């Protein structure tokens, strides 16, 4: 982007980095969090050991934990930028896992067809919800809440409220791609399974889609002001529908990964996934009312939320504390965005006033 840089040198007034870079606030908070944990570890060990929180093995460990919610959070970012929300993802993930597990171990469809059936289920159901949301003036919150309960019911009916056990047919998704590599710090085995790479790849693709394509920018337009988008000749209904369809694809892929990790199709697999992913997305700075946000912010939110539990374990704090910490992080991260924007507005207004009175004194 050499052209952008060239004009900035022309006469770009100083803008606070909190305003210029959307993700600066949350990144600052995340980095402070990491520093605090590392310091605590150093204090606890008396500075004799390398802090395990930032050891390669632990970082890869966090990546494995957040891979699946991460994929769904990337989709949720898209949905929320378009002005929607999706509460059904958790139960949809359970449903897809159960369908895929049934396909493999009960209906004997074969591994690949079962995966395809699972993913298509997610796409079809999300598209259906997207259709209703784009045609009916009912809040997506309500429609997807209905979807969530419905999917739970379907899933329980399919598996007779029991778990569907598999024999590791999906293990290829969690094989270690760098088997044998040791962590130079701790000496433990490093693990990168394929699904972590899939998560990073999908995040990159959706990030590019949102930032650099016509389709992506139109999602922002629809979420920001759907009336203006309509008047600009954008097919608002089609946009809303397609965003949910894409969400279905991502949830489908994520659910298969989830099933591979746990190896059992069970209703509890996706429980709470919607809450976690929405939390990740809002921590990352996406506005609940739409029109604002990006995948980079969501990635920060994903790693932030994912590393809290991990850090609590390393500090040997009881797991109950995790909830308190997670909750506080959400509140702090989201209000910090508001506080910093109000503050920079206040600063710029003061500057503006100074400029105006300066003009006036010059004129009079």
């Amino acid at each position, binding site marked *: 982007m050499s052209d952008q840089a060239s004009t900035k040198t022309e006469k770009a007034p100083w803008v606070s980095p909190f305003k210029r870079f959307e993700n600066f606030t949350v990144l600052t908070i995340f980095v402070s969090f990491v520093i605090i944990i590392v310091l605590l570890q150093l204090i606890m060990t008396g500075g004799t050991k390398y802090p395990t929180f930032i050891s390669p093995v632990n970082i890869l460990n966090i990546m494995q934990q957040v891979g699946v919610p991460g994929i769904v959070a990337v989709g949720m970012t898209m949905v929320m930028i378009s002005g929607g929300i999706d509460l059904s993802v958790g139960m949809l993930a359970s449903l897809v896992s159960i369908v895929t597990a049934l396909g493999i171990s009960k209906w004997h469809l074969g591994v690949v067809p079962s995966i395809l059936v699972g993913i298509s289920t997610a796409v079809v159901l999300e598209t259906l919800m997207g259709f209703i949301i784009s045609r009916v003036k009912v809040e997506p919150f309500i429609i997807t809440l209905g979807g969530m309960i419905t999917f739970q019911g379907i899933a329980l009916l399919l598996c007779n409220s029991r778990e569907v056990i598999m024999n590791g047919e999906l293990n290829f998704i969690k094989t270690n791609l760098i088997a044998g590599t040791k962590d130079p710090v701790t000496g433990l085995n490093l693990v990168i399974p394929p699904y972590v790479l899939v998560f990073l790849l999908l995040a990159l693709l959706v990030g590019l889609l949102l930032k*650099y394509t016509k389709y992506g920018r139109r999602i922002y337009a629809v979420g920001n002001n759907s009336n*203006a988008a309509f008047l600009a000749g954008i097919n608002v209904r089609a946009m809303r529908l397609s965003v949910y369809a894409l969400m279905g694809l991502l949830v489908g892929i994520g659910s298969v990964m989830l099933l591979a990790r746990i190896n059992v199709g069970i209703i509890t697999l996706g429980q709470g996934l919607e809450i976690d992913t929405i939390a990740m997305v809002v921590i990352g700075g996406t506005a609940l009312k739409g029109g*604002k946000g990006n995948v980079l912010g969501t990635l920060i939110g994903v790693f932030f939320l994912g590393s809290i539990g991990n850090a609590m374990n390393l500090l040997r704090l009881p797991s109950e504390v995790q909830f308190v910490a997670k909750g506080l992080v959400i509140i702090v991260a989201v209000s910090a965005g508001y506080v910093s924007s109000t503050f920079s507005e206040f600063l710029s207004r003061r500057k503006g006033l100074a400029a105006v009175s300066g003009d006036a004194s010059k004129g009079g």
Partner: protein
Amino acid sequence: MGEILRLSNVSKTFAGVRALQGITFDLKEGEVHCLCGENGAGKSTLIKVLSGAHQPDIGGEIWFEGRKIDLTPHLALGLGIQTIYQEHIVFDSLSVMENIFMGLEREKGIFLDRKEMRRQTVEVLEYLKSDLRPEMVMGDLGSGQQKIVEIAKGLVFKRKVIILDEPTASFSISEIDNLLEIIKTVKKSGIGIIYISHHLDEVFRVGDRVTVLRDGRNVSHYDIGGLTKSQLIKDMVGRDPSTFYKRESVPIGEVLFEARNLSGNGVRNISFKLHRGEVLGFSGMTGSGRSELMELLFGGARLDSGEVRIGDRPVRHRTPKAAIRNKMCFITEDRQNTGLFIEQTIAQNIVVANMVNTRNFISSPARDLKVAEGFIQKLSIRAKNARVRAMNLSGGNQQKVVLAKWFNTNGDIFIFDEPTRGIDVNSKQEIYQLMVGLLKQGKAIIMVSSDMPEVISMSDRVIVMKGGEMVAEIGKDRISEEHILTHSIGEKAQ
């Protein structure tokens, strides 16, 4: 200069009401053609016909570059007719560049061609001598700058006609100067501009020709050279005063309410006295600060300086609650949103404002119904009973419910903001009678109205506002349409 657009004999009827009648209008390349007229003269309807939002009645013709066409919004844009509405229809979280290109993006392969879009944006912004940059976020810009972005869009896509509806409504003086300069630049590129404004100064500064509308008809066409403001005003007014409502006169008593040098909420230095039995009219064009002043009086906005006195006692209304306690009532302009709880019943609406004054912790639906039934009788509200929802009433009856709500608080000082907007003729008269009834009880009325006959027939005195300040106070015997209009849009009094 070739002709771009021509309307001949265009009429538009809504449910039997003639909004436009036999309009002729034409626009040439590279000219600014101004449309003038009072509120309700048909300017907005004409714009909607030009942008394709309304189709004219049978017999009316629209010609574009020598071809007769049937305009639709889509076709209008396709032909290059861009309407820039008074309220901003923009994406405030997106950049200037994205606002310009949204819906008509340039692409290179599957990705956006940001470089090209940026180049075109910079080119147009430079041509307009604007200091805006493509990457600025729309929401950070002032309304003057947002308007320039919308005009820039017209240039990027080589539009042939740009319609500007009250573009300077919320502008500062420097923003107005800036916009007028930009319009002169745009005009040079051959674009035809239709400019609608209440501000005659602006019309004389940028206009090449003027068309005056009154009550949906063409009154006159002028070239700007040789035209005077007084001629223009004379054309805009000209109703027969003998057709106006005749109000019963009521003796005027002592001072009940006084404003001393009020400033805040966009208005400055407002002083007036209001007497018992008096209607004090506030006139002025949209954006002159009338509604803002009323909000200030009622405690809906912060008072920066000045003093309000009720009787001989200074008061300070920090919230509407305090104002209601001091026996003030505010019949707002927007019945649907601020006047009524539209989905609730008549009874619930009527008792709501008086809750400030009652000490009843538990509300009694039976008592509320009884109170409401009383008002339904007294104000002859046409509804089956007090359980009918406000949304199911006609405009006139809704307004009566709003009145009943305030009568129920037993207030003394009534602020009416547009008391009869969107109300049929019969209900209008009833509302007027109810207002006179208040005066007879020794109460006082502050009335904001854009309906000129209403101002003239109801007011004992009229204060004219312009740009947030009082520009004139007109006594009963001197109230006339021409007089008011001269102050509200023209220059200083003679």
